[in-house]
């Protein structure tokens, strides 16, 4: 899933400082799971912004709505009426959600309440970790199911650098060395030969380096 976290409240307040009426839009997918932008967080953010305004002696009218997801136009229809009465929409979706709302309402000011972090998952309650770098050409079959593109701090493809020590990365003793994980796993699977083979430079044109990407599935088109 897409993992995000909320921006500091002061930063969001600054973005909406000129607005009198705002619509706060949550999303019931990934950002609900990572507890950044679900229905609950929409309520908390609205209340907090309202209280900040009150302290300043000004009113903030806000309403919250949490569609199924922001990244599909049909689920945004529920916003069509609501946005007519507001100066600003605060999206608590990921960066995709913010942009889908902005695209739908060309005359409307839309701001992000979250920082979209990465493609990852829940490792324990309240902890999410990065797992996928969206490079466009998966190599997990060559690396024992552990991604060096995103989990090695240097995205190395031919094994660990000299900074790997005691299973940890040179940048932070809290960060696992991805290549140590790969080594251990391949050793356990008796497939270490995968680590001895030379991996040539990666084709980054399949990642964002090749420009904005699009996936088209013909049979799914109407």
């Amino acid at each position, binding site marked *: 899933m897409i993992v995000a976290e909320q921006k500091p409240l002061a930063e969001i307040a600054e973005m909406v400082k000129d607005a009198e009426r705002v619509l706060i839009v949550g999303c019931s997918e990934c950002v609900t799971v990572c507890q950044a932008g679900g229905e609950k967080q929409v309520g908390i953010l609205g209340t907090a912004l309202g209280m900040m305004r009150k302290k300043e002696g000004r009113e903030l009218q806000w309403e919250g709505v949490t569609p199924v997801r922001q990244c599909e136009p049909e689920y945004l229809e529920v916003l069509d009426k609501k946005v007519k009465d507001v100066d600003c929409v605060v999206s608590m979706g990921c960066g995709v959600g913010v942009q889908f709302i902005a695209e739908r309402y060309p005359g409307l000011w839309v701001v992000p309440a979250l920082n979209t972090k990465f493609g990852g998952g829940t490792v324990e309650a309240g902890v999410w970790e990065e797992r996928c770098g969206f490079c466009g050409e998966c190599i997990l079959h060559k690396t024992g199911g552990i991604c060096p593109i995103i989990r090695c701090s240097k995205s190395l493809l031919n094994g660990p650098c000299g900074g790997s020590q005691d299973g940890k990365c040179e940048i*932070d003793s809290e960060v696992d060395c991805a290549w140590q994980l790969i080594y251990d796993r391949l050793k356990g699977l008796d497939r270490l030969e995968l680590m001895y083979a030379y991996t040539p430079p990666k084709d980054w044109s399949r990642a964002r380096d090749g420009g904005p990407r699009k996936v088209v599935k013909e049979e799914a088109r109407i």
Partner: protein
Amino acid sequence: MKSGSKLERVLAGGHFAVTAEVGPPKSASSKGIVKHTEHMKDHVDAVNLTDNQTAIVRLSSVAAAVHVMRAGAEPVMQMTCRDRNRIAIQSDILGAASLGVRNILCLTGDHQSFGNHPTAKNVFDLDSIQLIRAVKDMRDEKKFICGEEMRVAPRMFIGAAANPFGDPFEYRVMRLAKKVEAGADFIQTQAIFDVERFAKWMEAVRDMGLHERVYIMGGVIPVKSYGAMRYMSTVPGMRIPKQLLDRMKAAEDPKEEGVKICVEIIEQLRQIEGVKGVHIMAVYWEEIVPTIVERAGLYPRPEVDDAVG
């Protein structure tokens, strides 16, 4: 001869090679590089120029290499994968070769979080092994990474680093094998303090016959103080035996003790089969290099035929 560099000729001639490192300054002045080069040039076969080491912005290693040549020594230009993509790397290699640089050390590069621009975007379009292969293909096949051909190839003696103290230990020799396979001609290792562990690594290197396929130079660092050594012992990928730390702590003259330890390590390295030279990394203490070379009995340096073969 692959490159005709002096370093290659010294090693090919069977001499125990000596290189030393000079760190380019955080300024637009060549003074320090020239001063250090002139001071050590008779005592070393080549001078390494670091490439924005520890991710701190410094005068470029390409330019520094030219200053070294003007000052009368041979450079080993270090190049990391952190700051340039494959286009810039190949371009700099062509440029450096056109200026007369004949040795390159291919490195991954320290992560930018260590340096003075931790908010920088890193590149790592290539890793060090892919970089070695790229230089080899440019030199031997006259080919760029994309497969296109060039008219005049860069003649480079290709170096790589090896860290016998990194983990996973069992993989470290395999990684060296990958570097040799990719085209490394010589190796400069991470600084050695734990000679016992290094000897164990060399044993594994010999078991695979790698010592006959690549010139291995052991890295050493003369340490000025107990504090410096203690700090170094915390750097990932460095291992310093407690006994050396104790010696530095107890020393009345820590600088002298640091030199003594360095010279002892060089002497021990020379006894290890397959070690073909030493690389002295006297960080912020370049002026000590001649003393160490002399006390280690490595002076005078051999005269090698100038003819580019």
